[in-house]
């Protein structure tokens, strides 16, 4: 009997944990996209000279480049979705 109660409790706890995680994930989904967009803007701002954008003095870009691995990868990813901004927006807002 004790075993049965323990198994039920474990399951309830596990369901609670997953629900909590999903809810937290949902809550920050949009902010995460916004953050990603900001990081992309930061990347383009600093490393813009490499893609023909106006950029800060070269030494500022070069000094920061070694620490901008994430922004570099993000910029590459953004290149893929850059042609379909509406589709991307719909998927963020969960429309359709």
């Amino acid at each position, binding site marked *: 009997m004790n075993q049965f109660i323990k198994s039920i409790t474990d399951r309830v706890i596990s369901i609670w944990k997953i629900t909590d995680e999903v809810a937290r994930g949902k809550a920050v989904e949009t902010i995460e996209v916004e953050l990603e967009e900001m990081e992309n*803007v930061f990347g383009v701002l600093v490393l813009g000279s490499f893609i023909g954008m106006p950029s*800060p*003095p070269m030494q500022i870009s070069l000094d920061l480049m*070694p620490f901008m691995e994430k922004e570099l990868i993000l910029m590459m990813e953004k290149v893929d979705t850059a042609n379909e901004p509406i589709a991307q927006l719909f998927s963020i807002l969960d429309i359709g």
Partner: protein
Amino acid sequence: MNKATNVFFMGKGGVGKSTSAALTSVFLAQKGFQVLIVSLDPAHNQSDIFEKKLSDKPFQLAPNLLAIEIDQEFWIRRYLKDVHHQINRTYSYLTALNLDKYFSVIKHSPGLEEYALILAFEQIRKDFSRYDYLVFDMPPTALSLKFFNLPSLSLIWIEHLLSLRQEIIQKRELITKIKILKKEFERDKVLKKIEEQREQYQTLKDTFENSELTQINLVLNPDKLSHAESIRILRALQDIHISLYRTINNKMPLDSSCAVSDDALANIPMLNFPYSETPLIGIDILQQFLEKNEDQLEKQLNVC
């Protein structure tokens, strides 16, 4: 505490920047000050003036007087090598991309020329902090102005990048807090680097703006063209809050009274360097010239 005073010599090409810098350094060394004369001009006239082969290693020209020539290329190469090394260490998996190819192009980027001079300047201030005077023979006007402008311009960019980065970090912390309920965050390396850069450029800007640490001498000849360019230099420096210490009228008939100008240069102390019949080449000739004109120069220095 870095007590060395930076004495810069700027002006139109051919007005006698290098000669004025050489004369000043010899004059100060004779007075018993510890002096280092640095040639930041890629044309490197100091070797010709002192008739000595100068390099990036300090060379003793006279008691109390050392000379150095800065090789811009060397500083650009050294800087890019450092960045390259950092990138290789961080993105070791990217080595397959052959970064060398990109770096050979970056070397020719606009802006690295003046940054090389800034790096050399910082190193010299560090290495010769115990000296009384660091005399800098500057490159032609355009590059010199970029050199003085670099800290202010970089700071504008840095302030913007800093505020964007802080916003990013704030958002990132918010997400981490909600998702993982953790309150300890890793220090953002990019933010740290931006803050380091801000400090570096702010120190440089403060040094250039501090008239006790930095004395900019503007050399000109009694002709219309060099006068016009001098006015432009004065205005460009005023835009970045750097003031002129003195104007030097080179190749002038020596007069005990101070030359008077009726325009923007009027409020700046002036010094007349007389025209010399013999070319001022070699330390002995420079010393003789100073001896010959000592009384007049001293008089001007006291009055003007």
